[in-house]
């Protein structure tokens, strides 16, 4: 008989609902696995054992009374540590927040709790979501469960690793330039970035407000769809939240993609894509053809400019968003300072890590007088061109397919000295954030035992079609059944 931690979220949810297993047993099984493995993986910053067990008991009692259970009752979940969780330490993996406990919950935190899911902990990340390997965490480095000497990707590395190591069947991350999809690719899980505005950002600590979006990690597309159902709600507390109803994403998982028009933008297959990644993605295209999709090459000519444009826009927005970390209201403060300017400068220089400081500097420079037009405004015009490329594709195609990451998981420390090398990890994911549309990564192969991800890009707010494509591909292959050997 399978261990509880081997089961999908769907299977756990069903077993709890039917009374085959209690929420408490599910919680204990996963907390036990976390205790066994997290010393090696280091996915978690904070474990919320008491919270998980209290919620488990709450739903076990509800079931005993014959009450209807919410849709994810009993399913363990981990949250990236940039989600505000009331009275539970939230660090963004930065020293500058110290032991700060938010006085409020993010909207998504509330939705997760109301869904019955059991929050087992807050996960490690690149500091303030800036990075592609989780090595920029101000706290410690998370390991990839497929090879503990390698990175899990970033910035949501902890959330990806937790799911890949089967410490929880579900987790949530945030994606600004690829920070869900790239770690999903490197850790062999499903990762989804919904359309900008689909999921509330209220209580998500902001990095780049026009790009950030929360999304799920799971081991199957169906599990991701279950979680998307919970978090995709219009929120009056987030004025960028789309005023749309939530579909039931599970109903689109029909397995049928006959006639689906699939575009393959050739610029995503330029040199720089690892040979095994290219081969795996091309094999995936063949699976789509066999399933009856119409697969055709297309072009999005401005992709090569998206990376530079992003590395102006995101740091510019970050320089503004991170101005609030000033030692005044929360987190740490340098008490040696005897004037306010010194307090700001010392607190920030000591509290922020080097990558965060560098991006604040870059963003400040790009916005400063004399440079605003040449850098920031120019980047915003380029963003329009990138978006228009994708808009043109939606006239002819339902989804686009590309690699998620140009490579598989690299060794810890391998890229940390080169300011450019790390950033190139996001060349396939960034354009999607710039355009605001949705994309998912699903496992599509391995290179020397390391996972490769296929990116499926969908039309804005048509996550249903994107998930249908992802699910059909997944069910026609076995990649999702391979698990890390921990």
């Amino acid at each position: 008989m399978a261990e509880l931690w081997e089961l999908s979220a769907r299977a756990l949810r069903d077993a709890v609902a039917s009374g085959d297993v209690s929420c408490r047993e599910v919680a204990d099984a996963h907390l036990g696995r976390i205790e066994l493995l997290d010393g090696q993986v280091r996915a978690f910053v904070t474990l919320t054992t008491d919270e998980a067990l209290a919620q488990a008991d709450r739903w076990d009692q509800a079931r005993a009374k014959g009450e209807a259970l919410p849709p994810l009752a009993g399913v363990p979940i981990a949250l990236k540590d940039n989600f505000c969780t009331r009275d539970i330490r939230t660090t963004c993996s930065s020293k500058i927040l110290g032991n700060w406990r938010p006085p409020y919950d993010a909207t998504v935190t509330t939705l997760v709790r109301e869904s019955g899911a059991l929050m087992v902990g807050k996960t490690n990340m690149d500091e303030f979501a800036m990075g592609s390997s989780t090595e920029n965490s101000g706290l410690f480095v998370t390991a990839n469960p497929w090879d503990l000497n390698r990175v899990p990707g970033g910035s949501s590395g902890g959330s990806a690793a937790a799911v890949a190591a089967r410490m929880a069947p579900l987790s949530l991350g945030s994606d600004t330039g690829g920070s869900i999809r790239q770690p999903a690719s490197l850790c062999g899980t499903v990762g989804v970035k919904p359309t900008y505005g689909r999921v509330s950002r209220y209580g998500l600590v902001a990095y780049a407000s026009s790009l950030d979006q929360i999304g799920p990690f799971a081991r199957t597309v169906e599990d991701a769809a279950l979680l998307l159902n919970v978090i995709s709600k219009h929120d009056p507390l987030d004025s960028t939240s789309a005023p749309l109803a939530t579909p039931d994403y599970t109903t689109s998982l029909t397995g049928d993609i006959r006639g689906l028009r699939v575009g393959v933008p050739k610029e995503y297959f330029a040199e720089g894509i690892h040979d095994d990644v290219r081969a795996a993605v091309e094999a995936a295209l063949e699976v789509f053809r066999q399933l009856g999709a119409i697969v055709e090459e297309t072009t999005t000519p401005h992709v090569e400019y998206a990376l530079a444009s992003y590395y102006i826009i995101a740091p510019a927005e970050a320089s503004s968003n991170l101005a609030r970390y000033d030692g005044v209201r929360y987190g740490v403060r340098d008490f040696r300072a005897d004037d306010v300017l010194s307090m700001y400068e010392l607190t920030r220089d000591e509290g922020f890590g080097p990558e965060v400081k560098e991006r604040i500097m870059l963003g400040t420079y790009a916005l400063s007088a004399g440079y605003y037009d040449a850098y920031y405004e120019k980047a915003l015009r380029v963003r329009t061109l990138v978006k228009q490329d994708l808009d043109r594709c939606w006239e002819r195609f339902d989804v686009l397919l590309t690699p998620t990451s140009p490579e598989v998981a690299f060794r810890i420390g391998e890229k940390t000295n080169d300011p450019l090398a790390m950033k190139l990890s996001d060349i396939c994911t960034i354009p999607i954030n710039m355009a605001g549309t949705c994309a998912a990564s699903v496992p599509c192969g391995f290179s020397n035992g390391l996972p490769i991800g296929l990116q499926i890009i969908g039309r804005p707010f048509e996550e249903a079609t994107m998930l249908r494509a992802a699910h059909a591909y997944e069910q026609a292959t076995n990649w999702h059944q391979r698990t890390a050997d921990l």
Partner: protein
Amino acid sequence: MPQLDLAEVDHVALLSRLRLTDAEKTRFAGDLNVILEQFEILQQLDTDGVPPTAHAMVLTNVFREDAARPSLPRAEVLREAPEARDEFFVVPRVVEG
């Protein structure tokens, strides 16, 4: 495109409210210049007549009712402050003299 020299780094650090060490300034000048060089490719692109996109989703002025609602409980907010007294966050002297 002008490249950053150390004087410029000092200026940007002041705007960023960062008290960088000399080692940090040198390193950042180097790293930022490498990155700024990459931005040169954007200059190759003709963007005349292309409107800027600050925000991918088109929503305009999302308002709520102008009615008072409960705020965060003050005590809980001040509990997390590095230094607080009564109803205030306490900070070092702001005004000279």
